[in-house]
């Protein structure tokens, strides 16, 4: 895709390999499979307009959230907006650069540690960005999980009961909110989390 200008240089590739979790497994695919960083760069360049697809420009360019949402891997994910906001480093948090995109793929890759996955999962679920999951965060989370429409949501009493149960099970210090350590403690009890918190490009 694109001319030779859209290929990543070897030094840059090596640096990305050292700093992210990508490519350790993909590199074993040998000549048939390209390293995941190069694949990610190709996909990212596809989102940019034609005139900005050279290597220098693509590393500086930023892509708006709507365009990221058009990626097939994120299109059907109800958390796509939160994911993009968490990884975005722009001041208004409404666009992703290529390195933000790599960060996203790295955290969601196969070899990322459960520690870092649970850290970012916490930030994604923290809808109001206050550092804890309070009742509103949890209720918004459950609504995301159960579906978009009005008829697919849980009733108010079920929601209250569910959130009470969740807090009962995970809020160890009984302050009414779940902070990062409590969240990570709950996650550590589920070995399926690392497996389901994956996006494959």
């Amino acid at each position, binding site marked *: 895709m694109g001319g030779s200008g859209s290929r990543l240089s070897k030094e840059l590739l090596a640096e990305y390999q050292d700093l992210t979790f990508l490519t350790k497994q993909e590199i074993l695919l040998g000549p048939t499979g390209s390293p995941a960083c190069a694949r990610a760069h190709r996909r990212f360049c596809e989102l940019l307009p034609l005139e900005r697809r050279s290597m220098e420009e693509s590393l500086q360019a930023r892509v708006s959230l709507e365009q990221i949402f058009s990626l097939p891997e994120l299109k059907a994910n109800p958390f796509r907006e939160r994911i993009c906001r968490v990884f975005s480093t722009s001041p208004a948090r409404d666009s992703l650069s290529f390195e933000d995109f790599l960060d996203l793929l790295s955290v969601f890759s196969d070899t990322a540690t459960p520690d870092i996955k649970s850290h970012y999962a916490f930030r994604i679920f923290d809808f109001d*960005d206050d550092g804890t999951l309070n009742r509103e965060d949890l209720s918004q989370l459950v609504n995301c999980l159960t579906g978009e429409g009005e008829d697919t949501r849980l009733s108010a009493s079920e929601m209250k*009961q569910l959130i009470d*149960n969740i807090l009962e099970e995970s809020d160890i210090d009984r302050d009414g909110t779940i902070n990062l350590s409590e969240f990570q403690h709950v996650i550590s009890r589920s070995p399926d989390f690392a497996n389901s918190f994956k996006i494959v490009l």
Partner: protein
Amino acid sequence: MASVLDVPETPEDQGREPSPYDESEMHQSFHLLIQEQSQGAAEEGLELQPQAPGAGAAGASAGNQQALLGPEGATAHSMATLRILASMPSRTIGRSRGAIISQYYSRTVRLRRRASRPQLRGLGRSARPSLRLYDLELDSTALAEEEKRVLLVKELQGLPVAQRDHVLRGMPLSLAEKRCLREEMRSPSRRPRGRPGLLGCCSRLRYACALASHDLGLGLLSGLQALVPWHYALKRIGGQFGSSVLSYFLFLKTLLAFNALLLLPLLAFLVGVQTAFPPAPQGPVPTFTGLELLTGGGRFTDTVMYYGYYSNATLNQPCADPPDGGQCTPEAASLPYNMPLAYLFTIGAAFFITCFTLVYSMSHSFGESYRVGSALGAHAITVFCSWDHKVTQKRASRLQCDNIRTQLKELLAEWQLRRGHRSACGRLRRAAVLALVWLLCLGITLGCTVAVYTFSEHMIESPVPADREGALLALPLVVCLLNLGAPYLYRGLAALERHDSPVLEVYVAVCRNLILKMVTLGILCYHWLGRRVAALQDQCWENFVGQELYRLMVLDFIFTLLDTLCGELVWRLISERRLGWGKPEFDIARNVLELIYGQTLTWLGVLFSPLLPAVQIIKLLLLFYVKKASLLANCQAPRRPWLASHMRTVFISLLCFPCFLGAAIFLCYAVWQVKPSSLCGPFRSLDSMYEAGKVWVRRLERAGPQVSWLPWVHRYLVENTFPVYLLSALLLAVIYLNIQVVKGQRKVIRLLKEQISNEGEDKIFLINKLHSVYERKERSGAGRTQEGAAPPARPADHRAA
């Protein structure tokens, strides 16, 4: 920037050195101090420097706080309180860069100082507040972010390079920040102050070795799996159906790897060598008709595929025994190859490698999937961990939403039910129904077993003539039909009983099907080794058993294809057109059991047909494509919640325990106890297959002790039973110790939870006290602006925890 709460010294603290041993008195006086402070604060007015919101991604969120709900209810805290709360360490770690850097700094320090005790200086914040910390800073290690960063870089420079990269990769910072840290680390202005001495070197070496071996293991495993280029197919399946259906295909890939591992030594040491030195042909070679592909006989009988083809002599001998007793001149560079010995040892080594890999794989996935106390917290785990981000199609995503909603409702209903007590009568009734259903299922199993037994006896009574080889397919046909029909009966019976949890239903169904299959195979093994050996004394019975297993495998494959066709394609056509039910579900449990059954057949037959793993590999490859096509065209994802990692553990354990163990027992019995036939095969002149090994060891013994230590090992460790008892006793002791350790850990976890909830109560108490202090301040401030009409009121509510 930290907030500093200026507390003026009270007179009673002057001139006294508090010691940590009078902690109880300290607490008492601290309580008094707080009370006096709250009075003093209202009169003198407190200075508070407004807290800047945490650096990094948080933005102005602290200002937009919603009301903090305490455990009692609905009071809204003032902005000042909220600002302080927003800077609490437990909240900033989730969002601010400075907090992350400081957390990783302390982790790195702990990594380097693993052997030594933590210094007392670092305990300031976590210890109980003592009056040593007069200036009650809210953040006692109040370093700015820049200083923290410099400290972190210094610590990282002290680590070995591999560990440094590992730590850097695992930090939840953005790529640009990690690059900055790396740049700073690269400019070493001075030598890293690594810990000199043996301990630091050893731990560094150990860590490097552990990382290297972990990487190597990961690389090998993924290399083995990456050899088969199904990456996009699996991604598509995962995207459309989720992780649970994907686990079936991943298990198929694992089985392919196992079979390849089994086949390689056999190809190298048996098939290859025997093909290079073919024996003299026994008789006229029959022509190839298509029936051989089904029955395995005919043209295939006298080939490298079966046991009977292998010679019982030493191949490539430098000289044959000269008849006149003269000396023989050895040819140049020829290696004699003792075929019987090679046969025995290769099969043994292949089984041993498979056993080792299976047990390692099982223990690894068990270690990953079992957690202490994982049965608790189902609601939280469902909400936090059940969304599968691999799903990429809109329809599948909606289905996942439906599944999760159903699961949450079921969890809530189950929780309600468990709260309400059930009557003894209801429990007794449920137990009776359960017992009845189990009895019926076991009865069906017994019926199938008796059917197979009588049919096999009938086949022995009336032997099949040589030209009607197709009739040999009758017994495998009966077995396959029973294996196909009985699970439907089980499913019908299972509709009678109602389990509390849907996962238990699946496990029970898997159990019943497995019992049926294992019992049927057991009867067949008895039939072969017990009755066929006696019936075929003057023929090559090993070839016959190998062919029977080949027939079973092929027919099993054909029935699987038919089942896929009828069960999925035809069902979908019927249910969509006529009944309007939607697509059928992909039955994971039944499909996995079929895979396990096929693998058991392979392991049973390896001794008698060394090329059987190759047949299994071809079968698995074809099965992958057929199942994938049928899945994508005809099925939908299962509605039941499936814990993929638990399932993987269950599959591998089922593969190991009944199946591999049974195959190993069968192999051992055939090698040790059964007399090989005298007409064919590498052991035709011996009393048992194991004797080939014994003969060799005796020969080594006669040659003298300086030739080899093997006879000694054989006499004292293999033939002697004492070492086996000793090893078993040691193993039992180790298992018992591990159980005790786990029990102890559970106790510690419970104690720590209690301690944390006590700390939480302290926190609530302090938050409320803070709130009341600021409330009074605001009220007194407001009162003062209204010309100080009323005197400052006493604190109205003491919300002591």
